[in-house]
């Protein structure tokens, strides 16, 4: 899975594509944890090219949110696919993240 990271003035955007499941969720987690280790806690996960997300992926994002919030930051989501968004809402996990329709809005929220 290719993971791209772009630094902005007040946040860092991380982008991945394809599917996130048990086989590659740890890789995503490692990339996000590295940003935390570098003192970055304002994060945007840009998701328009993510077409499938299993619960393994959600737990990675939850763990990162748990790390960001106590540091005064947060992880927000941008461009979440409709199917993913509906499954998130179904299990009530959408309340743990701010979700923006596009990257510009997400970056601008910081």
């Amino acid at each position: 899975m290719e993971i791209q990271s772009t630094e902005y003035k007040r946040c860092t955007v991380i982008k991945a594509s394809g599917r996130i499941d048990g086989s590659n969720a740890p890789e995503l987690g490692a990339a996000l944890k590295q940003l935390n280790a570098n003192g970055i806690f304002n994060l945007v996960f840009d998701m328009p090219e993510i077409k499938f997300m299993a619960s393994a992926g959600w737990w990675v994002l939850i763990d990162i949110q748990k790390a960001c919030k106590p540091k005064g930051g947060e992880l927000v989501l941008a461009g979440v696919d409709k199917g993913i968004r509906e499954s998130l809402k179904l299990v009530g996990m959408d309340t743990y993240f701010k979700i923006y329709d596009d990257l510009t809005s997400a970056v601008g929220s910081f």
Partner: protein
Amino acid sequence: MKKNRKFPGSLECLGDVCDFVTHCAKECNLNEAQVYAVQLAVDEATTNIIEHAYKGHLPNEFEITCEELPEGLQVVLHDTGKAFDPASVPLPLLNVPLEELRSRGLGVFLMRKMMDVVEYDFSPEDGNVLRMVKKKGG
């Protein structure tokens, strides 16, 4: 339509599993949301087979059978690992403060939410058999 396929007991097979059930779901004329529900439920079930049923064992094959029923798509997963009953997994605590969220049980919870039927059986001879149905009207 009835199709079955065997997969290796490794997380690297998840993409192939998804492709297989997606193809079958579309052949049954499930809509986009229903296809996604099948993808998600089967992914969670497959991950459970690999991480629980086959945990501590040499990775083994498992089999997925997709069959079109009058009411929708039936997906049966069969593995020869140790008994793993999804009903034994407690429901996850949701709608709690962030720091109280724990990962256990979300995969099984998603399966139950996404599919209209989730039935499990185990025998020492046959292993685990998980039957799920996604109804077209559901």
